[in-house]
């Protein structure tokens, strides 16, 4: 073990018979023959709840003599933050006190001068920040065969590159379960921290030129990604805590007792009540062609113009099930397309009343910069032909020059 505290008894008890033990302690303190004890760890807690640092707390029972004792803490080949090391007596903290801490030069060690009013054992807690012992998160989603629901598992991955073993250490990642497991050197441990069953899932197809671009620009065909959409709230069997960033692998029950891998995506930090969107690939069966059907430049005064614009979407759903297509328009990108330049000003616009898409507007998620519409698409017909639906977004871009 590369981390050990050593209790050095007061010098009056020094015996030459313990030279070997004395040599051990000279790694951390000045030379001399000393009697040491090596109290083992009684308990270790690894606190992983901070996003950037890991705190290790360990308890040891240290025999103290009446008077002033030197307790040496030394380590090698581990990235302990020397400045962060704290020593807290747990038993009789009013009497057992740290007088001072000495830091020898060029050594990964320190010496506490600990005063005790009487001889006896004292339980102490030593805490420190350690590098190369960190965590990450991973998710596994297994969708039902009908893709209506899924089972979501969250794992904590503990990476121990700290060159130190921790036997039966308690660990807490900041939420969910507390674990107690041994961790060896260079081990990565994957721990199931939460499991959510029967989570409703919605497949979302999105047509958003500014974010996802064209699949075939010549034909003005948009790239239409498909996402699994989960809502992190209790109504959707989630909502216990925010999801942290991590890789999510998605599988589907193939109906034959096994699962098929659908793809993977990065789970972004998702607060409660927000939506998790997992990108699973481009949907080739939902075809969306987007064109500017009208661009009328109407002078208002002087060099001031309004632009009457119709964006036309020709949509075909070749799937044998109805789907909902999300259509998003960045108003700044649309203006740039219309004017051929970005004026730098905010976009002033209004939806023209005759636009049927206005009824599909998601007012909650639309902003002054981005409009979002939910467009229901029927399944392909019995003759295997898709119904070609046309939607028109009619907007007036105002007061431009």
């Amino acid at each position, binding site marked *: 073990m590369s981390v050990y505290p050593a209790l050095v008894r007061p010098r009056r008890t020094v015996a030459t018979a313990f030279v070997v033990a004395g040599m051990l302690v000279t790694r951390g303190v000045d030379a001399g023959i000393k009697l040491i004890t090596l109290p083992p760890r009684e308990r270790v807690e690894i606190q992983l709840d901070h996003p950037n640092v890991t705190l290790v*707390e360990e308890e040891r029972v240290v025999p103290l003599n009446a008077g002033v004792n030197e307790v040496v803490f030394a380590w090698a080949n581990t990235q302990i933050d020397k400045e962060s090391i704290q020593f807290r007596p747990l038993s009789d903290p009013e009497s057992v006190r*740290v007088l001072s801490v000495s830091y020898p*030069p060029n050594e990964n060690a320190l010496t506490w001068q600990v005063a005790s009013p009487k001889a006896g054992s004292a339980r102490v807690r030593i805490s420190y920040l350690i590098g190369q012992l960190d965590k990450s998160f991973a998710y596994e989603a297994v969708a039902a065969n009908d893709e209506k629901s899924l089972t979501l598992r969250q794992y904590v991955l503990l990476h121990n590159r700290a060159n130190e073993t921790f036997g039966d250490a308690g660990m807490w990642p900041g939420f969910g379960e507390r674990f107690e497991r041994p961790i060896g050197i260079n081990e990565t441990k994957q721990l199931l921290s939460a499991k959510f069953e029967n989570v409703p899932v919605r497949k979302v197809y999105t047509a958003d030129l500014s974010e996802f671009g064209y699949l075939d620009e010549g034909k003005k065909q948009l790239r239409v990604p498909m996402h699994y959409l989960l809502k992190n709230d209790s109504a959707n069997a989630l909502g216990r805590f*925010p999801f*942290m960033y991590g890789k999510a692998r998605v599988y589907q029950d193939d109906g034959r007792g096994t699962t098929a891998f659908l793809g993977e995506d990065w789970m972004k930090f998702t*607060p409660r009540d927000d939506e998790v969107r997992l990108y699973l690939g481009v949907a080739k069966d939902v075809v969306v062609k987007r064109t500017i059907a009208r661009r009328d430049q109407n*002078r208002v*005064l*002087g*060099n001031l113009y309004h632009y009457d614009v119709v964006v036309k979407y020709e949509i075909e759903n070749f799937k044998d099930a109805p789907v909902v297509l999300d259509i998003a328009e960045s108003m700044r990108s649309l203006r740039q397309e219309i004017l051929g330049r970005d004026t730098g000003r905010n976009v002033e616009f209004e939806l023209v009343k005759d636009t049927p898409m206005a009824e599909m507007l998601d007012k909650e998620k639309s902003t002054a910069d981005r409009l979002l519409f939910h467009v229901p698409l029927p399944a392909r017909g019995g003759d295997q032909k898709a119904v070609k639906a046309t939607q028109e977004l009619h907007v007036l871009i105002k007061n431009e020059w």
Partner: protein
Amino acid sequence: MMRRRLAWMPVLIAARADAQQNVDLSTVPPRDTVQLTIYNSEDLTLVRETRTVTFKPGVNPLQFSWASTLIDPSSVQLRFKTQGDKLDLLDTTYPHDKPQMLTWSVRSALDGDATVEITYFTSGLSWAADYVCVSNPEETKTSFDGFVRIINNSGEDYENAQVRLVVGTINLVETIAQLAQQGILSKHDADEYRAGRRRVAELGQKAKKPASDKAMKALGYAEAEVLREPKGIIKEGLSEYFIYTVEGTETIRNTWSKRMRLFAGTDAPFRIQYRYRPQEYGDQVVRLFILRNDEASDLGTTPLPDGLVRLLKDNGRDGLSVLAHQNIRYVPIGQEIELNLGPDPEVIHEQVPLRSYRDNLWFSRTGLEVRLSPGQGHKIEINDQVCGWDEHQVWTERIRNYRDKPIDVEFRRSFDGDVAFHSTLNPTLHDFRTVRFAATVAPGEKKDLTYRVSSKQGTNQEERRVTLRDGE
């Protein structure tokens, strides 16, 4: 054994210090006492040591040398603490071939011993404060323990030294480390330099005799006990400085450092505030613990020197959680201490633009000096150009609180140009271009703080400041 590098040698047989002879007999009187006054704003320490020296009648050469240390030679001074009426310092010689040595000639009418005091400045000794705070699980009170760490890289061991630590910024015209390297100055420079250094030293001397720190009285040890107590640290103000005196003495070996408790505060109440101040904390809402360096917080006995604060929390499971590590600047008595915990995953902030529009348009015409506005009945022609307008944007600051307690959130938004801020949020102006408004958000609540920013653009702009207006 530690090697002592500062050598103090009254040469007893040599008639003159500069006499060229190959056989010398020296005695080496040890230090009786040594006091270190360490200034943390500069690489400067005043060392004051006393030694007992036996003099014989006549002229006594005394040699003082400091090989491999960082002493400023121009600052070394000798004073007689006892028998001063029988001893006179005749001259001080800095030999040209021995840069880290000087010789004093002392005329003595005494045949016996006297206590001498030697003072000098050295570099390489420093100190730094740090603080450990542990919040209770309810996040209402925190312990607040202060520590000092003394670092000795001066080249010299200081054993059983009284240590005093000075908080405050002093003015130095040259660094001690430079002076230690370049040796003695010209006579004029040395006098100037010494006078400056002496003023600093005298300030240090004027500190009152330390009184016992009340916080250390309640340690609970009987006087008869052999046990040592934690070091009490005496704090007192001095001119623009503040001096901490470590009780008793400390041994600080060369290249070692030592950390001691400065004070212990328990149950300091604090409040929690969430802030959106992009210029200070970036484009995010951060969480702060705010406490005050005053007696009500079981603090306030001393200003807090610059130092790193380690903020932890009792996590309620017989353990600690790390909340923040933050350097604080000097905190005077009575001032607040703000500890930034960073963004909180349980408090979500979104800044949403809701609507944009323009009005109050003005036009310019080639050859015409006045502006034209259709609102004023002016006829606008085809070649007229927009030259001034008002830009309006409606925003909402959306806050969701998933904590189990209400939270206070404060926003500061800065705007360039001639801006009117329309809202019903009871805003105030933090400065001429920054609006401040605040809200309390209940547990589980989603609150929208909506306002309109109207900015005069082009030739409409008359001022460069924000005005507050009632909301629609």
